[in-house]
């Protein structure tokens, strides 16, 4: 609190009084403008929150903060400001109380609803991995529910072997019947199942657990069961007097043979492969697009001219907007365009990745040192050479690190994108939860955890290598070696000869198989000759490792590509072989014999990379033609989501009508009013089928109106489909024939004639806020509070846990090291489960709503924060610790005086970082029932209410972007303050 130019010296009591009247006034006038404004805004915010949630009791702490403000101004007048701890705690009390209310926090549900989630938890310990194949015996018999006279023949026939019989042919729900079976496996468990008329099966239960009967040694059993009351959905119950055919089934599944992977496991493995492939494709394509975008978003490149600077701001804004919208929301938007399926999900991943990578890459570009660029330019190098020698080596480490980071995120995202796009693992999980197949769900969750954790670990290793500074592989030049004498070259060349022959031979064989014998021999001879010639002509230039590696991979890829693109005309096959041969020749010619051992890894990697890419392309069902064909739909979607519904004009329905007696003679003829909207009929009465011209005059111009026949009892029918719109003078003319609907039958007592009516919506009153705006505002606050509570929960739990995961705290003892390893591993595994999946489970536990969202997000925050915190702990400077210990302080005192102060800035920065991410996640946690904006967005899209969905979308953008900005500023302050 230094002195600022405009500082008044007020008597303390006056300052206090001013702050009592207008919060912050006293502080501002005394020169602490920031403090005063902050106080005012805080009070305004708190009061706003209290009124929003309507909890008048909380005005008490708000009032206390107000009073504190006056006290603080008074104290400041005396020279010493009051401590901010009190208002901070009071404010936190208000915010958290309201937050708990807004997010419907009901911790007691965790206990009362435990039975709902117990099967899920148990299933997590018993995933469906392996099972014995089974031989089955299934017997069934139709059954009528309820009994009626006369009982019709049932649909469906009883099975012959094994047989199943019921003691009665019909019964009412809830009645007990006896089921008897013969011809089953002897001395083996029998499951009893019930099939309802729609075809859904359910297991017969006894006392809440599935009923199990055992057959005797003759394969016979008998059991009494209750006709299940939940067999038929309420809307399909039979009408009185009707009966429906159900079916009773008895099943035996006897295992034999060896354990095999269950179908679940196979499905999960296949889907995981799909997941990784989609993430891979999205990442690779995103890199391609993000590189040029990042150049446009780099200030050091774009700062020169006003036009480029404008482009820079445009691109930066676009990047921020796209990044503010979570991938899942993009997936929904894309699904509106290209339909549900993996393609929509891939597009969403791709778009979000481009924006995220574009921003990260641009920061790397901005950090490039211009010195080496200058130096290389000064040697007379061309622009391309400058990029390769001075720009790329500086950019490459960040590029690799950021790309791997994004790859990690994409793999996680890919596991949940199925929740929305109906494809992939996420979709399976949701389906399995709905079908109560918890063991299958457990298999998929465990698979996700293991795969994500493994990939995370691998990429962390790779990233560490990059940071530690292995020189970027591409540019290692290989020193010139003397060419050995010919005989030694021949000897050393044998392995490379074999390799080249293999690489060219395998694809060639695939193709050659389709050629005739003569061409086959010729091509084979040609290949051999070429390979030997190439090897003999080895160029003496050293070749960089990656280039050589890439070349090694080229022949089979070229051949495979050619085979894919075409399907078999001999000319093309020959081309494929030729291309493959040339590639093999290049390999043999350029790869120095001695260095072959170093090239196999990059070669295999390149090969694997290309194969993975092509396979992912197929899996993602990338259909560029569909994008083009549906382009108009795309434009419409874009326009729909870009126009939020903010204001509406209330409308009311207006009608003009004319009486039309059918047939003539009944009722009053039509009267025409002289001004305003009129409807004029060409006839005053008539019979059904008579021609009629309906004219509307004086109607609002260029308005959609609906023209209808209206009967006396109110039944109405549109005169014409897709009709009608008034012209620019407000006139309308419709030719039609009188509809029989208007006919009245006096003999039946009907005396009131029907009418012809023109109706339209007229705006009354001015613009006012659309109701959607209020909903979005409410939900935005809920979303923010959800993120706040989740981050708080995560931080509080993570702090103690993080000490267990810090190597320097756990020490060198066996117990310490073991605890450290266990905690670290547990945290890594826990982190691999996306918050959406965690929230899904919590939704099953405590019910849909923001509470589930808070729990899911909070649970996910814990391992993330614990990992970050533990890294901060491991980086503590031991100097101060030593110094404090040396004074004779206890361990606890050392903790408080030497360790905690070092940790606070780091912890705060991490909490803010996680808070950012939590806000993003909280916008979509509603997709699995976690409440907040996401849920409403999904609902509106489902109802085709795109205007309202757009309102929610823009609120999300504003919220995320705003919070991003605020937390970046606060983080800067925190880090700067720590220095």
């Amino acid at each position, binding site marked *: 609190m230094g002195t600022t130019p405009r500082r008044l010296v007020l008597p303390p009591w006056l300052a206090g009084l001013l702050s009592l009247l207008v919060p912050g006034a006293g502080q501002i006038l005394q020169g602490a403008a920031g403090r005063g404004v902050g106080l005012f805004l805080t009070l305004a915010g708190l009061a706003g929150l209290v009124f929003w949630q309507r909890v008048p009791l909380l005005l008490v702490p708000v009032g206390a903060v107000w009073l504190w403000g006056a006290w603080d101004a008074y104290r400041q007048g005396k020279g010493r400001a009051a401590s901010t701890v009190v208002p901070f705690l009071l404010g936190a009390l208000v915010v958290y109380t309201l937050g708990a209310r807004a997010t419907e926090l009901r911790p007691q549900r965790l206990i009362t609803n435990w039975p709902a989630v117990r099967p899920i938890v148990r299933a997590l310990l018993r995933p469906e991995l392996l099972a014995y194949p089974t031989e089955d015996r299934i017997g069934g018999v139709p059954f009528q529910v309820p009994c009626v006279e006369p009982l019709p023949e049932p649909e469906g026939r009883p099975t012959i072997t094994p047989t199943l019989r019921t003691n009665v042919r019909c019964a009412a729900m809830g009645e007990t019947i006896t089921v008897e079976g013969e011809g089953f496996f002897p001395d083996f468990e029998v499951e009893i199942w019930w099939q309802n008329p729609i075809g859904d099966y359910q297991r017969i239960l006894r006392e809440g657990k599935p009923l199990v009967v055992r057959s005797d040694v003759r394969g016979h059993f008998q059991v009494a069961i209750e006709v299940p009351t939940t067999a038929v959905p309420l809307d399909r119950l039979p009408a009185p007097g009707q009966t429906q055919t159900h079916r009773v089934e008895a099943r035996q599944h006897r295992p034999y043979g060896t354990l095999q992977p269950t179908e679940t496991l196979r499905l999960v493995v296949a889907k995981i492969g799909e997941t990784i492939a989609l993430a891979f494709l999205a990442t690779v394509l995103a890199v391609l697009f993000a590189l040029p975008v990042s150049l446009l978003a780099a200030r050091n490149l774009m700062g020169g001219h006003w036009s480029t600077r404008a482009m820079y701001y445009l691109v930066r804004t676009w990047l921020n907007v796209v990044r503010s919208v979570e991938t899942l929301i993009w997936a929904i938007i894309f699904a509106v365009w290209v339909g549900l399926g993996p393609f929509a999900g891939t597009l969403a991943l791709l778009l979000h990745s481009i924006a995220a990578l574009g921003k990260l890459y641009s920061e790397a570009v901005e950090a490039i040192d211009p010195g080496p660029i200058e*130096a290389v330019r*000064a040697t*007379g190098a061309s622009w391309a050479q400058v990029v390769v020698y001075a720009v790329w080596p500086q950019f*490459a480490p960040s590029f690799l690190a950021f790309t791997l980071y994004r790859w990690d995120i994409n793999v996680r995202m890919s596991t949940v994108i199925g929740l929305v796009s109906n494809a992939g693992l996420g979709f399976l999980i949701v389906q399995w939860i709905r079908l109560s197949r918890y063991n299958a769900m457990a298999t998929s969750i465990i698979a996700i955890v293991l795969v994500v954790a493994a990939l995370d670990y691998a990429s962390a290793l790779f990233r560490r290598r990059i940071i530690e*500074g292995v*020189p970027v592989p591409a540019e290692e030049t290989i020193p010139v070696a003397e060419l050995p004498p010919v005989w030694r070259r021949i000897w050393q060349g044998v392995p490379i000869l074999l390799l080249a022959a293999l690489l060219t031979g395998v694809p060639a064989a695939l193709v050659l198989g389709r050629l005739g014998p003569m061409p086959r021999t010729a091509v084979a001879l040609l290949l051999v000759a070429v390979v030997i010639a190439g090897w003999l002509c080895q160029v003496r*230039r050293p070749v960089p490792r990656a280039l050589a590696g890439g070349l090694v991979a080229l022949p089979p890829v070229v051949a495979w590509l050619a085979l894919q693109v075409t399907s078999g005309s001999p000319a093309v096959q020959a081309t494929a072989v030729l291309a493959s041969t040339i590639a093999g020749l290049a390999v043999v010619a350029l790869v120095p014999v001695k260095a072959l051992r170093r090239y196999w890894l990059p070669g295999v990697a390149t090969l694997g990379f290309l194969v993975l890419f092509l396979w992912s392309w197929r899996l993602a069902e990338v259909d560029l033609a569909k994008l083009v064909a549906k382009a108009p739909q795309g434009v419409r979607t874009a326009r729909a989501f870009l126009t939020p519904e903010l204001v509406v004009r209330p409308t009311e329905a207006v009608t003009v009508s004319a009486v039309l007696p059918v047939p003539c003679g009944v009722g009053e003829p039509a009267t025409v009013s002289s001004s305003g909207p009129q409807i004029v009929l060409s006839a005053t009465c008539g019979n059904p089928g008579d021609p009629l011209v309906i004219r509307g005059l004086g109607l609002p111009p260029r308005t959609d109106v609906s023209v209808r026949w209206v009967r006396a009892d109110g039944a109405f029918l549109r005169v014409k489909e897709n009709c009608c719109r008034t012209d620019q003078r407000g006139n309308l003319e419709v030719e039609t024939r009188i509809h029989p609907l208007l006919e009245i039958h006096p003999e039946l007592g009907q005396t009131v004639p029907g009418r012809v009516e023109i109706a339209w919506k007229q705006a009354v009153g001015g613009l006012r806020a659309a109701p959607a705006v209020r909903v979005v505002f409410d939900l935005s606050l809920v979303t923010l509070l959800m993120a706040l509570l989740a981050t708080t929960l995560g931080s509080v739990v993570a702090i103690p846990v993080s000490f267990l995961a810090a190597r320097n705290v756990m020490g060198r003892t066996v117990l310490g090291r073991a605890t450290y390893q266990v905690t670290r591993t547990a945290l890594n595994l826990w982190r691999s489960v996306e918050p959406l999946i965690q929230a899904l489970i919590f939704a099953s536990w405590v019910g849909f709503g923001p509470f589930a969202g808070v729990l899911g997000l909070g649970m996910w925050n814990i391992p993330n924060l614990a990992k970050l915190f533990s890294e901060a702990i491991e980086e503590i400077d031991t100097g101060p610790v030593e110094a404090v210990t040396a004074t004779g302080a206890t361990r606890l005192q050392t903790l408080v005086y030497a360790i905690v102060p070092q940790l606070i800035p780091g912890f705060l920065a991490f909490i803010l970082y996680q808070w950012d991410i939590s806000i993003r996640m909280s916008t979509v946690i509603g997709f699995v029932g976690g409440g907040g904006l996401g849920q409403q967005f999904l609902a509106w899209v489902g109802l085709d209410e795109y205007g309202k969905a757009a309102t929610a979308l823009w609120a999300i953008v504003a919220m995320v972007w705003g919070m991003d900005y605020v937390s970046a500023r606060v983080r800067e302050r925190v880090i700067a303050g720590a220095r």
Partner: protein
Amino acid sequence: MLQVEHLTKVFPGGVVALHDVSFTVEEGEFLAVIGLSGSGKSTLLRCINRLIEPTAGRIVWNGVDITAARGEELRRIRRQIGMVFQQFNLVKRSSVMTNVLSGRLGYAHPVLSLLHIFSPEDHARAMAALERVGIPDKAHVRADQLSGGQQQRVGIARALMQEPKLILADEPVASLDPVLAHSILQYLETLNRVDRITVICSLHFLDLVHRYATRVIGLKDGRLVFEGHPKELTRERFKEVYGEEAEMVTVGGQTLD
């Protein structure tokens, strides 16, 4: 021979870095450029190889108008002019060998060089250059693992790769301690006397100027205020260049006055 005629540079924003500077440099000279920081020394050097575009004036080198050259011709001129920088300007993450080889880019194959493929002759040149500056054993070490003096020697080796006729040195020893400063300047001196490469070198410390330079020009606020032999740089002339409050200080010795 290098002729600088009425060289002027005005930066956007109005800063006049050079104003009507004219001088001549004979072949084989070791020209020192002295002046306060901000007097235009770096700008002058960079105008000579057109890393900075002069606003007005002409630079003619051996009959070729550098200021009018463009594109391919400019690159061909640049590759004959080597440059050594105060901050060394090596690509930190690349190996010493790659940094040295990048000096040959103006001569190397345009496409193959993009793939880091150089001819064996270039490789031999690079090793020879490294031997000349005394660090052949560091050829495959990452550039940022080297000490300051070693990095500057790599910078010189890089310049040597161009087989230049002229070397521009922008305060090459300002970031080095006195002993290293002398050793670096000795390399430049050898190149100047033995290889007969013209050297234009901006320096701060006058004893270095006295020891190594054959001619001196002094800049003040972008204007040429001194041109002559180092011996002519008396205390009065010194104050003309550096301003009234300046004191002569030697490197590793007593004050001159």
